[in-house]
Every structure is written in structure tokens, then in C-alpha cells.
């Protein structure tokens, strides 16, 4: 019988096949590549579900050596698969979102007149296929090196798709920026991969891999002979350096401060691509990577604190910029950065389940919001400035209600999905923060961001859908077909209900932990029916590491343990509602006004994104360029000078060599015989034959 685990590779191979089909024969197909893409991602979804169910029934699957790329004796570089609760969940999520995005793209690209004029659909669907394939392969990667390769492919695909309309001015530049900024982070990642391979001799994720070796050493001090440490460096310090190097790639891809600047620009790509990038692929890859190798991070308190702090800060910082944007996609872009900040915060405080939970919920509601925004954009003939929209509620009910569901989830209003996960993130941060003030600061920033999130989310909803239409396009939007509405409806339902998977406050209140389905799922390291034991990948194990090895203990919250989740849930809910109500009072009026001008200089700073782009440009032109110029002078003058000197010497002596080859056989024979005699005499004298 065929086992689901034997077919895991097909999950990535199918979209790759659709990429090949679109590239080669796409232009002759009826929908120019959309149909193979849809079929492939549907196949991936089915296989992912099968793998998920198989993990449920018979435990995880780990095979690190499906293909050995290089066997260098000391260590091997291999490709393999790791299907455990985390990756099987992620596979389902990614393939589902990819499938819906493919379907939606038919409505967004193929049915739209302007997009038809611009053309290039086979290239578009090829990009989508390769993007999905790389991400899916990244998700089931069994070791860090393989993950790195597909991580890079994901980056490449985002470059292809963000710059899809390359004949216009902005998209190529945005694509380049996304590529360069994430590449900057990936340099550190690459160094980290090499470092981990050298240190542990393996980059495997699962049992026997580097997270387990590292945490075992940190916990017991055993196995030091198998760990390479440069010089006299303290082993834990070295691990922290490695962790931070890998984190560089994560910060770039997951658009965390200070490498978040590429993401808002990336809105130049087609909107379904934005949905894919933000919900399930590129940006999610960073956070997923931390979760994947969480066993490594969990024992390193310094790195955890940095992750938590970056996360909390990014959550607040990005939310503040989302407040002042006028473009609907820009608002969503900053909200993405902010939400991934929450996930990082959760991981930094050991909230592995909370982070995965928020990753899951966010994927659905953010895909929904982007596709909703895409629907608005095609319906109103490419208007995305919210001040030119308004009043769309009546004409586009399906879009409105699904978008509303996504917004409620994003803002964190009970009972929509975002509430439950964001609340769990904050509660986990609070528990650690009660013992460690630094984490409390991160928690406070996250909490404050809740208010801003509520505000900007509903500012967006009210400006887009409520009030009176503020332009003629908004007055008569184009009707949409099933292929746009269908994905919206599916995601709308999901955004509403996925929160029920892990209702922590309710579970604490009624004292029944069985309803924490996600937590139990991510904790199921035991193999049910002969599958492999994955004890080192469980939530339990991670919690143990965070508390005992990294020394981050949970404090006890002021009210009793049963009530505390409810109390703090209520606090964040009221903040979110407060933000939403403030937005309602300002923007849900017939003639809303621009408030940003009234904010004065502060508003300007925020509107210019805290001048971070300018700062990075200055870094490039003001610092890097002079340094580069100086090294160029050095290179041209001294290095090249030396090389040129060598090559002219070479060419000169080459001329000489050429002259030996005179063409006359007698000369050849003479030289050969003479050399032979020289050899015999020389070796004979040295070897003492003539004595």
C-alpha cells in the first residue's frame, strides 16, 4: 500500500510541474496556465491533508537521507523530509492558501481587462507555481541546509512576482529592494548554516539533529566532544552567535525591524501575490523557521530576549505606521509586519503554540483581507486609495462581510480567530514578563499595539466600505464572479472559526485542557502506531528548555490562575474595541476627514515611515559607497596591479614557452632526451645510486 509519507515530495513536485507546464506550453492553454496551477495546488492540498491525517493516526515521519548530495566522510549534506505535527499543519495551510490564491487569480488576472492588456499570464502562473513549490519544500525540509536552499528559492520567486509588471517603473525597483534587503539578512543565515554544520556535523532538525545536540549539552553538559567551538569561546555564547546569525535571515524574510522596509514596497506586485507572500509563503517562512528549530533557540535566554524584544517592538512600530496610510494595501502591509511581530514575541517568550496558532490564524485572515482588497481593486478599476473608495458595502456584500470577518479577526475581537491567538501570545509574554522586566516591556508594546491595530483596521473598513462613495468608480463597481467570491467565502469562514482550536481562557476557566486541540496536537510527539518518536519536537520539551535551561520562569499573575487569562483577555479585548470605536467615531461618518494633517510633525515622521528608508539609503550612499570606493581604489591599484603584473609576466614567459615549441621534431627529441638525462643524474645523485 502506498503510504502518505512516501508521497510527501509530490506535494512540492506538483506545483513545480505546473511551473514547468506554464513556462513551456502555458501560452497555448485555455486559461494561460491557471488551470494546471489550480490542479497542482489542489493535488498538493489533498496530499497534505492525507499526510496530516497520517501523522494524526500514526505519528511523525523523519527521513533525512532521501538523497545524499555530498558525503564528505565527516558529514553529509542531504535532502530529506520531516513531517511532524508542525510541518503537516503548515503543509495544509500553505497548500490551501496557494490553491485559493490560484483560483482567485483567475478572477483577478484573467477576467480583468487591464490585466489582460498587460498580459504575461503564463509567466505569472509559472511564478505562482514555483513559489508554492519552494515554500512547500521549505516546510517539509528535514535539515537546515535544505531549508536554506528553498528559503532562497522563495526569495527568488518573490522577486519574480513582485516585479511581475516589469515594464512599469515601480515594480522592478520594489522587487529589487525586496530581493536585496532579504538577501542582506540571508548572508547571516548562510554563515549560520555553515557554522551549524561545522559545529554539530549535522543540520538535521529532528531527533539526533542539531537542536537536540545543543539542548542536550546545555541541559546536561554532555556531548561536548562532538561540538566544535572556535577558540576559547563559551559554548553557550557560540550557540547564541549561531542562533543570531540564522535569525538574520528570519528578520529579513519575516520583515522584522530593521529589515522590514522591503515589505510595503512589495505591494507593487499583483494583489493575489501579496496575499500569498504575506499569508503563507515568504513572510511566514521566517517565523516558521524559528518554530522549526525552536529546540535550538529555546535554551538560549539572550537570543530569546532579543527575539521577544524585536517582535514586541516591531508589532508596535509597524502598527503606528499602519494608522496613517491611505492606500488599502499599504495598511495591510504594515499590519502584516505588526502581526509577525506578535509571532516573534510569542516565540521569544517560549510560546511555541501561541506563535504557531497566530501563524495559522493570520494566514487565513490576512489572505482573506488581501484577496478582499484585490476584489475591491478590480471592481473599482484599480483604485486602492481609500479616500477614493467608500460606500462599497451595498454593492459588494460578499466582499464586505468576508472582509469584515477578516478585520474582526485582525483587530482581535472575540470570537474571531485573531482574538484567541493574539490573546495567548500576550498572556504568554505577560507570564514571563512578571519575572523578567525586559519581557514585560515587550509585552507592554504588544499590548499597546492592540489598540492601534483595532484603530487602523476599522479605519480601513469604514473608509472603504462605509459612508458615501467618494469617486464614480466606487459608485458603480464591476460585478465579480464566483472565482473571486469563492475563495473569499472559504477564507471568511476559516477566519471566523479557527480560533476555536485553542481557546486558552475558556480552557482555564472550565479546567478542561482537552479543548486545546492545537496545543495537544503540537505536543503529540508520541507515535501512535509504530511511527517515529519525536520527543525533541514537542511543546513539552520546548517548555522544559525555556523554563529550566534558559531560566525563564513564569510568574504568577495577580488574580487566581483560573481567572487571570480571562482578565487579561478582557483587557486586550477592550483595547481593541477602544481602537475600533475611536475609528468609528472619526471615520464612520458621511464625510470623513483626513486627520493625519492634524498630527503635525509627529504625523509627518510616521507618514514617512520614521525616515527609515531614507536612513537605509543614507547607509548605502553615505557609508557603504565611500567604503566601497576606497576598497575599489585598493583593488584597482594594488590587487589588480599585482594581478596585471603577474599576467604580463605570464604572457611574456608564455611567449618564451611558445618559442620552445619550434616545430622541428629533432629539437623535440633533443629536449626530451636532455631532460631525461637531467632527471636521471639529479635523482641518481640525490638517491645515491652511483655510490
Amino acid at each position, binding site marked *: 500500500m502506498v503510504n502518505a509519507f512516501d508521497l510527501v515530495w509530490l506535494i512540492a513536485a506538483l506545483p513545480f510541474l505546473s511551473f514547468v507546464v506554464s513556462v513551456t506550453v502555458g501560452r497555448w492553454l485555455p486559461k494561460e496556465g491557471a488551470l494546471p496551477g489550480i490542479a497542482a495546488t489542489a493535488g498538493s492540498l489533498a496530499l497534505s491533508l492525507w499526510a496530516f491525517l497520517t501523522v494524526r493516526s500514526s505519528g511523525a515521519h523523519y527521513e533525512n537521507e532521501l538523497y545524499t548530495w555530498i558525503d564528505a566522510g565527516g558529514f553529509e549534506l542531504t535532502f530529506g523530509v520531516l513531517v511532524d505535527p508542525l510541518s503537516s499543519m503548515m503543509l495544509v495551510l500553505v497548500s490551501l492558501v496557494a490553491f485559493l490564491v490560484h483560483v482567485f487569480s483567475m478572477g483577478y488576472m484573467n477576467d480583468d481587462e487591464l490585466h489582460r492588456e498587460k498580459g504575461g499570464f503564463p509567466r505569472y502562473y509559472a511564478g505562482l507555481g514555483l513559489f508554492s513549490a519552494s515554500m512547500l519544500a521549505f516546510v517539509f525540509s528535514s535539515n537546515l541546509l535544505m531549508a536554506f536552499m528553498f528559503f532562497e528559492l522563495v526569495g527568488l520567486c518573490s522577486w519574480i512576482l513582485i516585479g511581475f509588471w516589469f515594464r512599469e517603473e515601480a515594480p522592478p525597483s520594489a522587487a529589487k529592494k525586496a530581493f536585496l534587503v532579504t538577501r542582506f539578512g540571508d548572508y547571516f543565515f548562510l554563515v549560520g548554516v555553515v557554522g551549524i554544520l561545522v559545529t554539530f556535523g549535522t543540520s538535521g532538525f529532528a531527533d539526533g539533529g542539531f537542536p537536540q545536540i545543543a539542548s542536550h549539552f546545555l541541559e546536561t553538559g554532555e556531548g561536548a566532544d562532538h561540538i566544535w567551538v572556535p577558540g576559547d569561546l563559551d559554548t553557550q555564547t557560540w550557540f547564541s552567535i549561531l542562533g543570531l546569525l540564522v535569525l538574520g535571515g528570519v528578520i529579513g524574510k519575516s520583515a522584522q525591524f530593521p529589515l522590514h522596509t522591503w515589505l510595503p514596497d512589495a505591494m507593487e506586485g499583483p494583489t493575489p501575490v501579496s496575499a500569498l507572500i504575506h499569508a503563507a509563503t515568504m513572510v511566514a517562512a521566517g517565523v516558521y523557521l524559528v518554530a522549526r528549530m525552536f529546540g535550538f533557540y529555546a535554551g538560549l535566554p539572550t537570543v530569546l530576549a532579543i527575539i521577544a524584544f524585536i517582535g514586541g517592538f516591531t508589532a508596535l512600530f509597524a502598527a503606528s505606521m499602519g494608522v496613517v496610510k491611505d492606500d488599502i494595501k499599504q495598511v495591510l502591509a504594515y499590519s502584516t509586519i505588526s502581526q509577525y511581530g506578535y509571532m516573534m514575541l510569542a516565540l521569544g517568550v517560549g510560546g511555541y503554540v501561541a506563535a504557531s496558532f497566530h501563524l495559522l490564524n493570520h494566514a487565513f485572515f490576512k489572505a482573506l483581507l488581501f484577496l478582499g482588497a484585490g476584489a475591491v481593486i478590480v471592481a473599482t478599476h484599480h483604485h486602492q486609495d481609500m479616500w477614493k473608495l467608500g460606500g462599497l458595502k451595498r454593492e459588494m456584500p460578499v466582499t464586505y462581510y468576508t472582509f469584515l470577518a477578516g478585520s474582526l479577526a485582525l483587530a482581535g475581537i472575540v470570537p474571531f480567530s485573531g482574538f484567541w491567538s493574539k490573546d495567548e501570545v500576550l498572556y504568554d509574554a505577560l507570564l514571563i514578563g512578571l519575572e523578567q522586566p525586559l519581557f514585560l516591556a515587550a509585552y507592554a508594546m504588544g499590548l499597546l499595539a492592540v489598540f492601534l491595530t483595532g484603530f487602523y483596521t476599522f479605519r480601513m473598513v469604514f473608509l472603504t466600505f462605509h459612508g458615501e462613495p467618494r469617486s464614480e468608480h466606487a459608485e458603480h463597481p464591476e460585478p465579480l464572479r464566483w472565482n473571486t467570491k469563492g475563495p473569499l467565502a472559504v477564507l471568511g469562514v476559516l477566519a471566523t472559526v479557527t480560533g476555536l482550536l485553542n481557546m486558552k481562557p475558556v480552557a482555564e476557566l472550565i479546567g478542561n485542557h482537552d479543548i486545546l486541540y492545537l496545543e495537544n496536537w503540537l505536543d503529540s510527539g508520541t507515535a501512535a502506531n509504530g511511527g517515529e518518536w519525536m520527543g525533541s519536537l514537542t511543546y513539552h520539551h520546548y517548555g522544559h528548555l525555556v523554563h529550566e535551561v534558559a531560566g525563564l520562569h513564569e510568574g504568577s499573575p495577580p488574580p487566581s490562575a483560573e481567572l487571570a487569562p480571562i482578565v487579561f483577555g478582557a483587557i486586550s479585548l477592550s483595547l481593541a474595541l477602544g481602537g475600533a470605536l475611536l475609528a468609528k467615531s472619526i471615520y464612520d461618518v458621511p464625510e470623513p476627514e483626513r486627520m493625519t494633517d492634524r498630527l503635525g510633525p509627529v504625523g509627518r515622521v510616521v507618514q514617512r515611515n520614521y525616515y527609515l528608508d531614507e536612513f537605509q539609503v543614507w547607509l548605502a550612499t553615505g557609508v557603504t559607497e565611500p567604503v566601497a570606493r576606497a576598497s575599489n581604489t585598493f583593488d584597482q591599484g594594488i590587487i589588480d596591479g599585482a594581478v596585471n603584473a603577474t599576467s604580463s609576466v*605570464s604572457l611574456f614567459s608564455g*611567449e618564451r614557452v611558445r618559442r620552445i615549441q619550434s616545430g622541428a621534431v629533432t629539437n623535440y627529441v633533443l*629536449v*626530451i632526451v636532455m631532460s*631525461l638525462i637531467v632527471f636521471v643524474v639529479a*635523482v641518481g645523485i640525490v638517491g*645515491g645510486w652511483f655510490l
Partner: protein
Amino acid sequence: MALDTLGGEDWFLHLAPALVMIATALALFGVDALDPDSTNHRAVFGVTLAGTLAALGSAIALLFGMGPELGTTLFSDQLVADEASLLFTLIVTSVTSLVVLGSYDYLEDLPDKGEFYSLLLLAATGMVLMAHANSLATVFVALELASLPSYALVSFLTDNRGSVEGGLKYFLIGALSSAVFVYGISLVYAATGSLLLSDVGTAVTEGVDQTGVLGLGVLLMVAGFGFKIASVPFHFWAPDAYEGAPAPISGFVSSASKAAGFLIAFRVFTTAFPLGAMQDAGIDWVFVFGVLAVLTMLLGNLAAATQDEVKRMLAYSSIAHAGYVLIALAALKSGGAHNDWVLAGGMLHLFVYGFMNTGAFLFVALAEHWDVGRTFEDYAGLGEEAPVASAAVTVLLFSLAGLPVGGGFWSKFMLFGGAIQNGFWWFAAIGLAASALSLFYYWRLIRALWIDQPTDGGHELDGTPTGLYVAVLVAALVTVGLLVGVGPVAEVAFDAAGNLVG
């Protein structure tokens, strides 16, 4: 005595690739006798290609363990069948297949096609036997069997001065070298009393009275090998012969013949002249090979850098590559822990080189077929007119230089890495510097293909030389494929090297 008892168990299976090629060559003689003008080129070509592919297939099958167990000797220890012999049989048969494929278009307007193919097959048979040779007698016979048809093949273009002259020089120097080589063998026999490699080895280990005789014999044999592998200063025939020969033959002689020459050098020097005993006796052949390696790397690359003609540049580049592979012998150390690594690096490089170099020469054959011209300037603009072939040769050239676009990267990596591990870092340093220099002249061709503008408005490329195209592409694909799939080949090379240096 029946062949069965004489040959040893399953001898015909062990020697299947050689037997298939001999049979094909004989069949060609038959066809040629009936149809002396080779009017039916297609049939002759088909038979030859089928024969070489069958030989290639049987070599692969044997390597995958589908035949009898390896590591036995045949015909009273005269021949040996092990991983090394199979690996080099694989090199020779794949190069021969590529060359046959490329020759179809090349020979189109030439007479005596049947002779060409049968000579090619006989030379290849000689090379395969070289890979199996286990005694100095069979070494010599196999070497001659490989060489004599090669002389004829190099001068095959009887109307072309360069070809005839190159062939004659090749023959004259070859005759001299054979004489030197066989004299060396006789001296070794005089000193040790045996021709069997393992017996010579035992005698040397036990101690030889006439050290001077043995030493002179060894050095004369070095000269013989130096001729076969075109190492400086025994290389003089090579540029003239490679340049004058029909381009597919240049590829054949510079890849397959060189690989076979190297294998017997590996085998003879590791088995018959064990390093420790020889150094104790004052016959330090490692030192000699070190000098040859450095000379060959430097002179080969320097000369290649100053050439104006593409084919001659490739001829010198082929000499330079012999220099890299010589490191495999020069970096051996008595009791060294990484001897197998070094030797495996050399074998791997010969394997990859077989494809890279044959492909490059076949591209020159393609250019000759189109009458493009000989110099770098003549090749200008070909990139646009023949993009596929140009892309393929670009990959091949970069891989020859050792850039990580093909298997050439891994083989140089292993060679230099092994040399460093064995404590001979200077070989690696010189090899790296030489490789950097080689990039300069490979780049000249690549620049001509893709960047330079043709001087006289481009070439008129007529005809579709499918065979040449396929051969160049296959060579490029295998080279690139070896970047990813080098593992299995490297494993075989390690096994083969491990058997030799134990």
C-alpha cells in the same frame, strides 16, 4: 589449454567492454571488405555507435555489480579486473561514444569512413586493456595497441598538411618513447626478476641489489608515461598532433588516451614500486612526479594563454590538465593517511575531464564543420548564431577552469584538498594559481562567442550537424549533472584508489 582455464572464471564477462569493441571492429572490417568505399555511411556509423554504446552499457552494468565480483586477476595475473579498471573503461567508452557521435557529421565528405571507425575502436580497445593491464608486458602491449591506431587517426586527413605533419611527429616521438619505455621495463625486469606488477612490488619491498639499474628503469618508464599523458617535458608532440588531428580525434586522444595512460601510471607506481621501499632505496619517484606536475601546470597554462588559435589553446589546456592530475601521484606520501583521497581526486578529475575536454574539442569540430576559422576572432558572434552549442561550451569551459558550474569544481576540489591534507599545500597553491590563469584564456573564447562582434558580418552556418550537437550537449549535461551527482562516481573512485594504495 582451454581459454576458460587460462582466462580464469568469467573472464569474458570481466572483459565484455573490450570484447564488444573488438567484435565491432572486426564486423566493421567485414563491412568494409564488402563495401570498400563505405558508401553507406549510416550503416557503418550505426554499427560503431551501437558497439561503443554496448561497451559503455556493459561497463556500467559491471560497475553496478550486475556481473561477477570485482577484484580478481585474469589470464594468469596478466590482467586485473577491479573498480579502477572499470572506472577507466567507463571513461574510455563514454569518450569513444561521444567521439563516434560527433564524427558522423565530421566525416560526411571524407573517404575511408570504415577505416576511421575501426581504427577508433581498436585504439579504444587498447585503452581499455591498458586499464586492465597487470604486468609490465601487458602494459606495453596495450599501450602499443592504443598508440598505433592513434597515429593513423591523427594523420587521417591525408590532404591536410597539419594533420599529416602532426601524425608524423606523434609517431616519431611515440617510437622514441616506446623504445625508452620498453628499455625501462627490461631494466626493471633485470633488477627484480619479474614482470608481474605485484611480484615486482614484492621484490622491491624485499630489497634490490642493483638500485641504480632499478632506478634508471623507473625513470625511463616515467618518461614513457610522460609521453603518453603529454606531460612537460615529454609533451612536444601534443600541441602539433592535437592541432593537426581531426577535432574529434584531438578530443579522443587528449581525453581517453590520457586517462588510460594515467591509470597504468597509477597502477604501476602504486603496486610495483611501493613508495616506502622505493624511497628507502633512494628512488624517489614522488619527487620526480612533483617536478613534472609543477612544470606541466605552469608551462601548459602559460603556453595556452598566449595562443591565438582555439584548437591550439585547447591542446595546451589539455597539457595543463595533465599537470593537475599529476598531483595525484606527486602528493602521495609513504604511510600518508589521505593517499586514497589524493588518488581518487586524480581519477575523478580524469572522469570529469573526459566529458569536459571531449565536449570542448567537439565544439571545435562543430566550428570546423561550419568552416568558421581557427582563431579566437573567427569565433566572434557564434553565441548568437548557435546559442545552444555556445551555451554548452561555455559551461564546459567554466567547468574546465574549475568554477562550480560543473563536475570540474569537485574534482579539482578533491585533488587540491587531498594534496593539502597530505601536507603538500604548495601543489594546491600552484594548481589554484594555474586555474586562475586558465580562466583568462577560457574566458577569451567565451568573450569571443558572446560579447565580441564578428569582424566580417557573421558566419553562414549551413547544415544541421545533429550528431555533433547531441555530443556537445550530452558532454555539457553530464558535466553539469556531475556537479550534483558527483557522489556515486566519487565513491567508485575512492574504492578504486583504496584498492591501489590500500
